[in-house]
C-alpha cells in the first residue's frame, strides 16, 4: 500500500541577477507503509531539498515547487500552512543533521517533547510528561525522567540526536524522514543511533526515508535505494541489487572510489574525475556526462530517461537513467574480490551482544 507518492517533483531557486538553480529536477518515487528507503547522493544532488519540499519547509520567496506529493491520497503541495502544521509531526516527522540547531536551546527537552504531544493530541500536561519520559527511555537515554528538565546543551551530540528521534516519534508518525542524522556524529555513536533507528522503525512500523551520502549506511538500513545526481534519480533498486549490480557509472564510480574495510588493503581507489560542479543541465543531456568514463555521443543532446532494466540479483525492480551503463560482468568481478575480515566477523550465537532496549508497549 503506497503511503507517499512523489511525482515529477521540481524545486527551482531564483535569485535576482542570477540564473535559477534547479535543485530538484523531476524526482518521482513511492514509499510503501513500513518501508525503509534510502536517498543517496553527494552535496548538491538535491536530496535534502526533496525532503524539505515534501514537508513544505522551503521558503516561499524565490522558490518554485512543482509536481505532486501525495500522502495517503492527500496532495501536500499547496496545502495551507495550518494544515501543513497539523500534518508535520503527526503524519510525517523529520530528523535533521544537526541536533544542536534543531533543538530550542532555551526550552528543556521535556518541554520540547510535551509541546509536540499537547499540540497534536491535546494531551494533558501530566500525561504528556509521562509519555515524554517513556519516549526518552525508549531511545536509550539513562535516567529519562530526571533528564526531562535538562536543556539541550547538557546533552552530548549523540544524546541530542536521540532526543530528536524521541520527539519525532512522539506522535507515532507514519513516515519518518531522516536527513543525514548521523553525519555529524562519531562512528561509534553513529552505529548506536542507526541500530536504534532500525529497531524503532521495526517496532512502530513507520516508513523511513534515510537521506545520506554514506553508501555503507544505506547498505545496512534501507530496503530500497535511490541514487540521486544533480537533482534527478539516476538509479533505483533494492539494496542487494544495487550493491551487487550497480549499473550507473556514477553509482559504480562511488563504490569504486571508497576504500573498504572488507577489501584488500592495496586495492587502488578509482576516483570519479572532475568535481560535482562539472555538470550540464539535464535539459541538455546527462548531467553526469562531463565526468563519466562511459560517456558516448548520445549522452549529450537529449536527456536520458529513467527506465527499468533486467535485474541480476535480489528482488524487485531496477531502474536506470543511462544510455551506456556499466556492463554486468564488471559488477560481478567486484563482488568476487571481497573477503570477510576479522574486524567484521559474522555473528555467532556465542558472541551476540545485547541490543538497545526496545519499547515496551
Amino acid at each position, binding site marked *: 500500500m503506497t503511503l507517499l507518492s512523489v511525482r515529477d517533483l521540481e524545486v527551482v531557486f531564483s535569485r535576482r541577477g542570477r540564473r535559477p538553480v534547479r535543485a530538484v529536477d523531476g524526482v518521482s518515487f513511492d514509499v510503501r507503509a513500513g518501508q525503509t528507503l534510502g536517498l543517496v547522493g*553527494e552535496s548538491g544532488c538535491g536530496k535534502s531539498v526533496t525532503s524539505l519540499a515534501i514537508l513544505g519547509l522551503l521558503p516561499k520567496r524565490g522558490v518554485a515547487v512543482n509536481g505532486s506529493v501525495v500522502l495517503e491520497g492527500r496532495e501536500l503541495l499547496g496545502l495551507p500552512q495550518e494544515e501543513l502544521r497539523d500534518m508535520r509531526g503527526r503524519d510525517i516527522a523529520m530528523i535533521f543533521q544537526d541536533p544542536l540547531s534543531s533543538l530550542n536551546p532555551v526550552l528543556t527537552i521535556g518541554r520540547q517533547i510535551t509541546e509536540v504531544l499537547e499540540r497534536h493530541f491535546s494531551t494533558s500536561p501530566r500525561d504528556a510528561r509521562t509519555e515524554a519520559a517513556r519516549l526518552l527511555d525508549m531511545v536509550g537515554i539513562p535516567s529519562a525522567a530526571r533528564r526531562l528538565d535538562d536543556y539541550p546543551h547538557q546533552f552530548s551530540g549523540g544524546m541530542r540526536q536521540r532526543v530528536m528521534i524521541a520527539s519525532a516519534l512522539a506522535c507515532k508518525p507514519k513516515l519518518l524522514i531522516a536527513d543525514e542524522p548521523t553525519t555529524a556524529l562519531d562512528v561509534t555513536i553513529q552505529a548506536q543511533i542507526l*541500530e536504534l533507528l532500525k529497531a524503532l522503525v521495526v517496532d512502530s512500523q513507520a516508513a523511513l526515508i534515510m537521506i545520506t551520502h554514506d553508501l555503507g549506511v544505506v547498505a545496512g538500513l534501507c530496503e530500497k535505494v535511490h541514487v540521486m545526481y544533480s537533482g534527478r534519480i539516476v538509479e533505483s533498486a533494492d539494496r542487494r541489487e544495487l550493491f551487487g549490480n550497480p549499473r550507473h557509472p556514477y553509482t559504480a564510480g562511488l563504490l569504486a572510489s571508497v*576504500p573498504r*574495510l572488507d577489501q584488500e588493503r592495496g586495492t587502488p581507489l578509482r576516483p570519479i574525475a572532475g568535481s560535482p560542479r562539472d555538470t550540464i543541465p539535464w535539459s541538455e543531456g546527462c548531467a553526469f556526462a562531463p565526468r563519466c568514463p562511459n560517456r558516448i555521443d548520445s549522452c549529450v543532446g537529449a536527456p536520458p530517461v529513467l527506465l527499468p532494466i533486467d535485474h541480476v540479483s535480489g528482488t524487485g525492480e531496477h531502474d536506470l537513467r543511462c544510455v551506456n551503463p556499466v556492463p554486468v560482468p564488471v559488477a560481478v568481478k567486484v563482488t568476487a574480490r571481497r573477503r570477510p575480515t576479522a574486524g567484521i566477523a559474522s555473528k555467532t550465537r556465542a558472541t*551476540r551482544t545485547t541490543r538497545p532496549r526496545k519499547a515496551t508497549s
Partner: protein
Amino acid sequence: MSLLEVSDLTVHFPITEGLLLERQVGAVRAVDGVTFSLDRGETLGLVGESGCGKSTVGRSILRLVEPTGGSVVFDGTDMGTLKGESLRTLRRRMQMIFQDPFSSLDPRRTVEDTLAEPLRAHGLAPGKLAHERVTELLDVVGLPRNSGSRYPHEFSGGQRQRVGIARSLAVQPDLIIADEPVSALDVSIQAQVVNLLEDLQQKFGLTYLVIAHDLAVVRHISDRVAVMYLGRIVEVAPAEDLYRIPLHPYTIALLSAIPIPDPDVEDRRERILLRGDLPSPANPPSGCRFHTRCPWKQPTRCDTEDPVLREIPAVAGQAHTVACHWAEQIQAGALRPHAVDVTSTSAIG
C-alpha cells in the same frame, strides 16, 4: 634514527575560575602522555573519534599549540628548546595540511600569493623565481596553471584542498602532518586527494602523519596505525594487522561500527556497540580510561590500574602494541563481551 620521536607528550588546557584572579581549578587533558615514533618515508595514521586529542597531537608537534609536558624530537633536535627564529626555520621542514579547505586559505589573497608566501618567508625563490615555482606546484597537484590569479572562493572544495597541499609542499618539507585531509570533501573527490597524497609521497620521499577519523581511508594510506582514546594511544600496529586482528576493545568496537557498502556483510556482521558517551577529558576515569564503556571490562585491574602500551608477542609480523590488561585473553576468545551498565557512564557536561 627516526625522523620524529614523540615521548610522553602532554597537552593540558587549564580551566580557570574567578573574576579578578583567575585560579586554575582543573585541566582539560586533551593529550595525556602520547609516545610514538615515525621513520623517514613512513606513513603513520592516527585515528580516533572526537575528543581523543589526535588533532591536538598534530598541532602540538608543530608547536601551534604549546605542549605542557613530554618531548618532541625532530631529526635529532628537541623542538621544545627552540624559540623565535630557530623555530621558524625548523618549521620549514614540517608542514601541515588542514582539514577545512574553506577556512585554511586567506579569502583575500590570490592562490599565487598563498603559494608564494612560504617561499618568501624562507627566502627560497626571490623575484621571478617565485612565479615559476608556483606554477610548478600547481602542476604537481593537478591544478590548471592559470589558477594563480584566482581567489579561493572561485574553486571547489577539492581544488582548494589541492591548493592547501601545494602550499605544504612549497618549502620541500620532510614531514607533512595531514589533519583530516579529506573529511570535508565529497566522497567522490576524496579518492582523488588520497591518490594525490600517495603519488606525492612516492615522488618526493615524504613522511606522513595522517590524522583522521575515517578508518577506511587511514587503512588505505598508512603503513602503521595508532588508535587514540581520551588523550592516550591505546593500540599501535601495522595497518593490515590492526584491521585483521584488532586487540584493544575500543579498536574492535570502532571497526565494527564502520558501515560497509555491502548488504550481505552488513547483515551478517557482529556489531559491538559501545554504550553512553565519551567521558569528560577534564575528568578521565580511573584506571583504564576505557573501562566505563568497555564491553570486555573485568572486575579486577580495569578500574584501578592504568594499562601501559605493551608489545604483544603472540601476533605475527611487526610490533603490535596495545594498552589493555586482558588483550591476550580477548584475542584468544577466552573472554566474551558483555552488556555495559549505561548509568555508570557520564555524558559530557
